[in-house]
């Protein structure tokens, strides 16, 4: 049991680190865009001082680009803040759709780096799962990370959320590169420990090219 707790702790730290690094990268990109566009405004004023005419539309265009990036940064920081606070509550009632969407938002840069498009098919009705938000997000992230590695040339991943008698399920479909050998490697110790903690189950099918995560309502 103590080794499972250690594995879950390590996995959580890795997850937190990976997401934090990704978010800091995104914030840096936003700062870099603001830096260049603010620099461009500065260049225009220097040129105006030298007698070159200033085009108000050009100034407006650059200013609006800066405002877009400020809104982008605000959204990134709000997501980071939400993510950081998911660890506060040991148990919470979670809308499974919202949780999946949030993890996909956090994973956006990882998907983009790999050239992968993620599509979410929401459930017909709200699916509520009472559990520890951070660990559920970690488990979904691990499944998503594995799924993104086995999309093959299709590069499109579908996350289909549904309700079951005992709770909910997430089907990661479109795993064109999933072979029997790769299916045998998942879940690893990390996912197994989290599955045990969350009383969840996982099936991986190389034939169906999908993996399904089953979650208990509480």
């Amino acid at each position: 049991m103590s080794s499972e707790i250690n594995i879950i702790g390590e996995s959580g730290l890795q997850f937190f680190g990976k997401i934090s690094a990704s978010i800091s990268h995104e914030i840096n990109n936003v700062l870099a865009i603001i830096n260049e566009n603010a620099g461009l405004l500065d260049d225009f004023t220097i040129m105006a001082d030298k007698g070159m005419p200033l085009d108000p539309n050009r100034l407006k265009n650059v200013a609006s680009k800066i405002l877009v990036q400020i809104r982008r940064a605000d959204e990134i920081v709000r997501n980071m803040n939400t993510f950081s606070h998911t660890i506060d509550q040991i148990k919470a009632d979670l809308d499974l759709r919202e949780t999946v969407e949030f993890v996909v938002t956090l994973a956006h840069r990882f998907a983009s780096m790999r050239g992968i498009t993620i599509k979410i098919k929401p459930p017909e009705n709200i699916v509520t799962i009472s559990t520890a938000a951070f660990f559920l997000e970690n488990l979904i992230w691990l499944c998503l990370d594995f799924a993104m590695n086995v999309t093959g040339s299709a590069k499109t991943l579908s996350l289909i959320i549904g309700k079951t008698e005992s709770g909910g399920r997430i089907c990661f479909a479109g795993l064109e590169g999933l072979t029997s050998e790769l299916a045998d490697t998942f879940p690893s110790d990390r996912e197994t420990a989290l599955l045990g903690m969350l009383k969840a189950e996982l099936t991986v099918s190389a034939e169906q090219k999908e993996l399904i995560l089953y979650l208990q309502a509480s």
Partner: protein
Amino acid sequence: MKILLVDDEEELVSALAERLGIRGIDAEWVVSGKEALLRVKDEKFDLAVLDVKLPKLGGRKLKKALQEKCPGMKYIFMTGHGSEDDFQAISNEVGEEYYLFKPVDIDDLIKKIKEALYSQ
């Protein structure tokens, strides 16, 4: 001199290219490795500024691909946050002085461009 800027953040490379242009440096930009490889087919560039974390291809792989097509072209890398592995690998390939962190200072970038062109 002619510079090719490659970064998936369009608003970054377009502004950077314009600022370099204001300073008399002919700079063009693309937002993917694929576009960069197409662009060098038709035009000759002296130096490429590459984003390390470029989607799909990645900055280092793009450099290798460009090297085959454009012998003699020089390289500078930019990154939002660099891993130790990236830093080591890129430092070995082009020198740590050509591994810049975003946001970059325009004057510093120009200095590095000139250094790279005349000493790399």
